[in-house]
């Protein structure tokens, strides 16, 4: 009898302790968005063989479900079976209908306005992007300011395209509409809600 599912990530387990791990993810995501620029370590290990870090996978496992269409970039496309099985999320081809987007190749991230930006009356009907970086650390040339930050916070990022800062400035100008971002790197994550202003350099 033929295998109904291919080998590899489609048939990798999700959380080892679903209740505990999902709560840890919610807590981390809440902290990350309410204190933008803090790098949070997420102690959830996932072995999937996918070219995406545990923090990004864990965020989607906890947050995505059958009501949140998911867009995956080319590098993350192998994760479709994994998320379909564990979350029931529909993987969509069109970025503008997705509620979550997983960008495993940060430099190739589509322009932010290609994603759902929400409406004036319903700004929450927008996409949340999870972008995997090659480097994410507190302190550095990128300066964040805005709600949730007393004065300023600084970050070092690597992996984004040079156009990202201009793209983000355009997203910021759309407030209350716009997208929100979680940056991830391995087991670490950092929140960037649309209300935050970015200055300085990404590299």
């Amino acid at each position, binding site marked *: *009898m033929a*295998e*109904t*599912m291919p*080998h590899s990530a489609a*048939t*990798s*387990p*999700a959380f080892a302790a*679903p209740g505990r791990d999902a709560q840890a993810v919610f807590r981390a995501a809440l902290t990350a968005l309410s204190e933008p620029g803090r790098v949070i370590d997420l102690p959830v290990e996932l072995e999937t063989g996918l070219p995406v870090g545990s923090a990004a996978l864990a965020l989607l496992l906890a947050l995505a479900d059958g009501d949140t269409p998911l867009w995956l970039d080319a590098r993350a496309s192998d994760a479709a079976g994994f998320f379909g*099985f*564990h979350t029931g999320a529909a993987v969509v081809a069109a970025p503008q209908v997705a509620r979550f987007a997983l960008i495993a190749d940060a430099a190739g991230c589509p322009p932010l306005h290609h994603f759902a930006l929400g409406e004036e009356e319903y700004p929450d009907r927008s996409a949340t992007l999870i972008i995997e970086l090659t480097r994410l650390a507190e302190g550095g040339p990128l300066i964040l300011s805005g709600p949730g930050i007393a004065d300023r916070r600084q970050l070092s990022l690597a992996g984004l395209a040079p156009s990202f800062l201009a793209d983000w400035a355009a997203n910021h100008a759309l407030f209350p509409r716009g997208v929100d971002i979680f940056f991830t790197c391995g087991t670490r994550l950092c929140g960037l809600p649309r209300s935050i202003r970015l200055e300085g350099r990404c590299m």
Partner: protein
Amino acid sequence: MPEIDASQAERARWMSCLSQADPASLEAAWAGLHPSPPHRWLRQPETGLVMLRGRAGGTGQAFNLGEMTMTRAAVRLEGDRPATGFGYVAGRNRRHAELAALFDALLQDETRRPALLSGLIAPLQAPAEAARASRAAEIAPTRVDFMTMVRGDG
């Protein structure tokens, strides 16, 4: 309803049998497997609700019959013939869902299938079939056949 082929129908039959089997028989059969096949859980048993659908009159319009508590599990059997097994059982018995998933995975292995079909599935199906047949035989004499004359529309 989508078309299903013979091998899918066979799998559906054994999955149905495992779901309705007495969990103690499954546990005994699992304990009898030496060595215990290596496996890891894709989905540990989780209990939830499913909506049962019916059709009016058996063939008419679909409607929601009601919700039923159900427990499901999914396991990946490792080794040289890996397979993914799914267990769905009515009620809350987590171990039953685990065993149904484990045996579904084992039955997909063609080298183990004949022994399991004859040693596990057939003995479980036999009493259920016998009970169904005897109940049908009890009811059959009470059947009333109506004959209706269809009158043409004048």
